[in-house]
């Protein structure tokens, strides 16, 4: 019995160690440019419901979208990275932002889940606090977006 428990603990320990060495990332694209984000920062994906413009001074936050009985503010990630959204049927990425749920208009290509080795993730502080670093997913180096703090301190175009 002890041996069984020990084996189980060893097995769980190995599994835990493997998980500790991996990072779940969601990869999505905006105007053809690919971005990665930590899975736990994403609330969901839905069809883009169309937005209502808001006369706003806040950089990149200038619209609302409907969600159920309320609405979500929209962060214009395409504008921040000077990309042009040309998709006829874009998707809405709902983000778990520190100030409440936030919507981002992304390309129609459904976001993909990637298990990325920790060694392939490079966290580094740069000029833009909206970018956490980069990761290698699908043999491509992709910027990691800080979705929870998006726009909080970075008001500059990338």
């Amino acid at each position, binding site marked *: 019995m002890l041996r069984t428990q020990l084996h189980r603990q060893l097995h769980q320990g190995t599994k835990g160690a493997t998980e500790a060495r991996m990072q779940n990332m969601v990869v999505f694209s905006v105007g053809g440019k690919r971005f990665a984000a930590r899975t736990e920062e994403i609330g969901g994906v839905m069809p883009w419901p169309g937005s209502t*413009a808001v*006369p706003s001074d*806040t950089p990149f936050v200038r619209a*609302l979208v*409907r969600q159920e009985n309320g609405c979500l503010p929209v962060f214009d990630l395409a504008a921040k990275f000077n990309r042009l959204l040309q998709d006829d049927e874009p998707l809405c990425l709902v983000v778990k932002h520190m100030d409440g749920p936030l919507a981002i208009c992304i390309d129609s290509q459904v976001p993909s889940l990637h298990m990325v080795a920790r060694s392939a993730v490079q966290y580094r502080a740069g000029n833009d606090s909206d970018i956490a670093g980069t990761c290698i997913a699908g043999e491509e180096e992709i910027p990691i977006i800080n979705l929870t703090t998006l726009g909080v301190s970075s008001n500059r175009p990338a």
Partner: protein
Amino acid sequence: MGLRGYKTAVVSRGLEVRFLVVLLGATHVAFPSHWVRGIVTPGQEGHDGPVTWANASYAPTDLARRLTIQAKSVTAETRVVLYANEQRSRSFAVDKVVGLIDVERSLILPLPAQFRGGERERLLGLFVESSYIALIANPFWVLELPSRNNVLDVFVLRLSERRPDEFDSRLRLPATILEEASLMPSGSVK
């Protein structure tokens, strides 16, 4: 449920704010109607000077520009809203008058916290209607007066005092405009 909660629920039932909803460009903007003194056609407006209506003068303000909204040029649907309280009055052009709408206080949403700029001074919040989202203009900002906390509560309390069958007599719209407004699609968000 405790008595306190029950009482609160009873007191809060039926609290609502009446808004005048207009279009500025493609944006639906709502104004607490309590301070709407009239709606006139551009032809009745003075050129660049104040609008005089019913012995009261209303200084013009370019509300679309102040809200940083690209308004349309003058059309047959353009109207001038006369807006005032006891302290100050203003007149401003809108691209279209959508109508009057009563909105339950609980359905008025604050501007999401992600909006952190000057829009927080200009806009009190929003409400969602079946075919549009209306942004609520801060009536104090419209009149270029210092703002205050809980602005909408002032309008909620006053409106809640009216009887169900009583039209808000403080909304002193000219008779011709009232007839026009009665033909407009209006309703309530409940």
